[in-house]
């Protein structure tokens, strides 16, 4: 009985994780600007991997490998926002037509962004 419950929980989490993954990849394709695509990519890094690895942790049970999976999720949660921040900064410094995609408040702000990055 507990086997079936474990399987159902793990299948629930895995299917939810697959749904999030497909949504994220679809988002990276459909959005038209790089800064919008970061939103879609961050979905995969945080929620997608949480659900999929929760499914695996439940399926594995109480082993050393499930502890390593928990450490993996925590590590990825720590590094993924920093990666998104750096990519956003890159896009902001190297974009030629920035004012077409977003409102910039004053004229000096554009120069400051391009100088400091």
């Amino acid at each position, binding site marked *: 009985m507990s086997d079936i419950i474990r399987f159902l929980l793990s299948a629930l989490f895995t299917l939810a994780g697959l749904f999030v993954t497909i949504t994220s990849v679809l988002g990276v394709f459909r959005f038209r600007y790089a800064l919008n695509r970061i939103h879609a990519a961050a979905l995969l890094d945080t929620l997608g991997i949480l659900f999929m690895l929760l499914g695996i942790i439940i399926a594995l049970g109480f082993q050393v490998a499930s502890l390593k999976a928990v450490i993996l999720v925590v590590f990825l949660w*720590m*590094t993924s*926002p920093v990666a998104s*921040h750096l990519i956003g900064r890159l896009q902001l410094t190297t974009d030629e037509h920035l004012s077409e995609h977003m409102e910039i408040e004053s004229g000096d702000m554009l120069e400051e962004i391009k100088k400091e990055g």
Partner: protein
Amino acid sequence: MARKNEHYEESLLGRLDRWTQSGESGLDQRMMDDLASPPPPAASLPQKELERRMDRDDRMKHHMLLQEQATYDRIRTWGSVRGSRFFRRAYIVLAVLFCLALIAVLLRATATLPPFGNPDNPMHNDVARRYIEDGMEETGAVNLVAGMILDYRAFDTLGESNVLFTAVCAVLILLRISKEHSDATAMLELEADDRMYEPQDDLILQTMVRLLVPLILLFGIYVILNGHISPGGGFSGGAVMGAGLILYLNAFGFEKAERFFTFRTFQTVSVISLSFYALSKSYSFFTGANHLPSIIQTGIPGKIFSAGLIPYLNIAVGLVVCCTMYALYTLFRKGDL
């Protein structure tokens, strides 16, 4: 750190370099000085006027001198223009021919090998069976690959660590500009110019890297120490540790990284690790393939302090690889270690 050869310009290689680059060479200058005794008289007067003023003997000598100079000019310009072109084309043709010859030799050698899977092949001897069946008892390592590269064939791994060390030595000789030589500060300023435009002191990155680098180094140490129990070992664990140090360097800058990793650190760690490995496994130079009976017991397989000398050799190799990766990165970025 290489010494400069002051007389490179006049040496044989220097002259060869200048000849292939189609520039002026000292050889031509000396030839010209040898032939330079009569100054060319055509500087002041045109040719026809000069010839009318000379008598017959002088005219013939003048004509021969002009011919000599014309021939000499042809020789000199051939050396600088067409000679180097010929040299470049001949080099390409010879390189292609050499590669084709090497391909032919290698294909011929491969064709004489016995067919694949033949049970009479010399490869099907007892060695593989012995490694697989008796490996865990003789070496004490659960991970049979680690047992093979650090116990049965430890001598080959000594060669590999030496290759890493040689690579770093070569890059150091070519690229290192240390701060002790005062005429190199100008070149260091130029190198710093490259990195002037990069983003520095990103606060978000620094906050997270302060948390992440100890984790990465700890994970690298875990991979090194568990080399004989699970896949990993010295080479991969050393690469992970090197990656952690490179991340720290990127987030914080060279000044902060040099507080704990200088050239002396690199020297000390590399030389001590490599000497330890060499001292413990170079008896194979004298005994051939026979092992000496080891003092350290093999212990219970599966624990960390088992498998004889393997954990210590893993640590030595891991330290060498970590220092090598970090040294190569900073040498290519900054030119100093």
